[in-house]
């Protein structure tokens, strides 16, 4: 886990039981395509977040496999049905093997 891999989760507020909750995830990452050259003319190695998964309520609720076609600083928006209060925890790994994670507390209100 690297602390400099910044990420943020935003939840549609307030999450109510049984009502779809939007999760917006933003990760700071260059998503290097491997087609780029630096000033000295050497090509930069491909480095993208290749897999990501979000866990909530004891199960994986969202999984993503990404390639270089995803823009730098990837933004992912998906929906989850909130049933009980708990952590939503997202983990990911890039091509260099660097792992990152971010989590947010989901306080579920009655409908």
């Amino acid at each position: 886990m690297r602390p400099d891999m910044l990420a943020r989760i935003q939840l549609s507020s307030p999450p109510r039981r049984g009502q779809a909750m939007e999760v917006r995830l933003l990760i700071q990452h260059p998503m290097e395509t491997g087609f780029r050259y630096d000033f000295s003319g050497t090509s930069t190695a491909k480095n993208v977040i290749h897999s990501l998964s979000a866990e909530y309520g004891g199960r994986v609720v969202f999984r993503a496999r990404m390639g270089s076609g995803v823009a730098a600083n990837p933004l992912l928006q998906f929906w989850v049905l909130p049933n009980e209060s708990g952590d939503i925890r997202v983990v990911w790994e890039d091509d260099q093997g660097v792992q990152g994670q971010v989590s947010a507390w989901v306080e579920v209100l009655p409908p």
Partner: protein
Amino acid sequence: MSEASSLSWSRRQGLGGLLACVGWAAAPARAQAPPANLDWAQLYGPFTGGINPTPERVSVVTPRLADNGLSVPLAVRVDSPMSERDHVRRVVLLSNRNPRPVIAEFELGPWSAKAEVATRVRLNGSQEVMALVQTSDGRWWRGTAEVEVTESACMDAS
């Protein structure tokens, strides 16, 4: 190469150098020829097992005109009740002009409540973007969106 040094070369050396230059220039020109649009059937074939996905239920939402191909907002919405019996299992984003045509793959389930995913993608020029969707009954669906890209990503120095 300075002019003085080239003048001191023998004719044979000069000719050899010229041929080398031509060879060097021809190779990357072939590699970087403007990419032809790939065939959709070849792109979704490996996912669907050769079956043509039905062009229904899936809508891809993108701006019609994207100023910059480096970051194009893209949302996929599927007409699905997202119940235990009928839900979206997989969403695959495909591009027929990017050097790597599979942009991303998402896995959803009945707990997703809404069959909707959004992200931002890189697009290498004006093209059609396809979302390939597999529902829980194993069937494949597709939806496309046409995007006009003024400044493309990937192949230039970006």
